[in-house]
């Protein structure tokens, strides 16, 4: 049985309706987001389910996961803090911000806190260069922006997650 198709029949139908009937493959990226929402990351099973829904070989769905940075093929923290350290942000202290944030969380970039709550990642430009330091928080549900940040404001946000995991 195809879990995604069964559970999200109407949502999948609405997504497919955005594209011409003979170009169902266009729904691959929205369905990968759906899979991530359902399973936390893109599991092997999810690749097979999406491939069945779209009639596209699973390897061709899988390569999208490797190519696009917002898809994950392994589990991470419930909250992924993604800090931009690209040139404009780095000119405004983003690298120091990231370093101090990691120190406060007791982890290195790319690692997850032992409670499984937070992963910290370094990402490319987020289109918020005038409000650096900034990060986005990616969860299975979606993405939110947090701009003009300090280590204090970021840790305050972290504490709200810790007290309400």
């Amino acid at each position, binding site marked *: 049985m195809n879990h995604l198709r069964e559970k999200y029949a109407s949502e999948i139908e609405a997504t497919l309706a955005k594209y011409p009937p003979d170009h169902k493959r266009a729904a691959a990226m929205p369905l990968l987001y759906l899979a991530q929402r359902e399973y936390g990351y893109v599991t092997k099973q999810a690749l097979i389910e999406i491939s069945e829904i779209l009639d596209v070989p699973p390897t061709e769905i899988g390569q999208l996961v490797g190519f696009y940075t917002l898809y994950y093929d392994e589990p991470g923290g419930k909250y992924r803090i993604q800090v931009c350290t690209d*040139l404009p942000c780095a000119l405004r202290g983003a690298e120091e911000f990231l370093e101090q944030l990691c120190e406060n969380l007791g982890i290195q970039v790319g690692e997850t806190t032992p409670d499984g709550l937070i992963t910290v990642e370094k990402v*490319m430009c987020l289109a918020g*260069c005038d409000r650096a330091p900034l990060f986005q928080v990616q969860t299975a549900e979606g993405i939110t922006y947090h701009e003009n940040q300090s280590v204090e404001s970021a840790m305050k946000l972290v504490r709200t997650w810790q007290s309400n995991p």
Partner: protein
Amino acid sequence: MKRPYLLLRHRDIPDLNDLTVYRQNGGFEAFRKAVTSLQPQEVVEIVKASGLRGRGGAGFPTGLKWSFIDNKNWPHYVVANADESEPGTFKDREIMEGNPFQFLEGLMIASYAVQANVAYVYLRGEFWQLAHQLDRRIQQLHNAGLLGDRLFGTDYSLRIFTHLGAGAYICGEETALLESLEGKLGQPRLRPPFPPAVGLFGKPTIVNNVETLANVPLIIERGADWYRSFGTEKSPGVKIFCLSGRVNRPGNYELPLGTTFRELIFEHGKGILGGKQIKAIMAAGASSALIVADERALDTPMDYESVPALGAQLGSASIIVIDETVSMDWLIRKTIHFFQHESCGKCTPCREGTYWMKHIIDRIHRGQANQNDVELLYDVASQIRGKCLCALGEFSTEAVLSALERFPQDFAARVAQQEPAL
């Protein structure tokens, strides 16, 4: 008196992102006028006459692009490029948050002009919240009878859908964007054919940047001559300049094309952080050549003709300000890492070239390089140029070559401190 905003109108009019407020301020009258009283060709001609040029970076004349649509092959599509990812660029995001209906109206007029019945907004995946806001606003337009079938009692129908990318700078390149929208890897296509002939799903397609489209309702409403009263002869209109880096007041500044760097950086941006000296300017984000910030450069008008005279490009007008505390070897290490990460891997010069530039600059940065490595970096960057499938590879060399040519002392100082590697 201060000139009213044309694109960032939400800064003058509160709650402009509310449909009722937008309509109270003349919203969707340009779209109505186009659909009910102008032929599609007339709309194209007005935009052509306005001299509007693409605001995504390439500066290609918008009306001319629309006129290239292949009328022997149907259906047609229009795609709004909302993949804003160039480091230093954050204008489309402000438009879509603050003045979203003006952008959508522009997209709708463009769709009518090329008789597309379906349009897509391709947003970078990071704009997840924005995409959901746009979905709700598109639904409001349906409910208000501004989208859907037989609009204003005519035969014209239009639907708009959003599509989220998932983190890939290359998808800002229009053919990579179309591949991505088709559910494939975002890798550029070999051109020709260009999208107006063979685009989305193999059909004629116009891809326009968000800011470009936001200009269109005003041009239709007030005319090409009015639009030409802003900016310069060859670069008419206003532009949103994204100011970032070592300035006191970074942000978006909507100014006529042809405004000088000095006015932007020192009047609007209030000068350099900590009263330091300005050293260099990047005018097109990380894709820029480094402009030596001397008096002549500061007095140069920011338009599509004048900036190239400084050996650089205006691009998306993402002005990154560099001060005297920044060393160019540090700076190009940032840009090289960016392009190496974002290279899509399709063509060899870009995939391998950015990889090797990264190795060399890391060696210089780690203190394990000598002057030969600096020359090797120049050599590798030079060999990438002119050989790539799309502009990304080309752009990856702009900062590198210009830094090595225009700021050789930064590199000489760096390797002089170092012991050569064994």
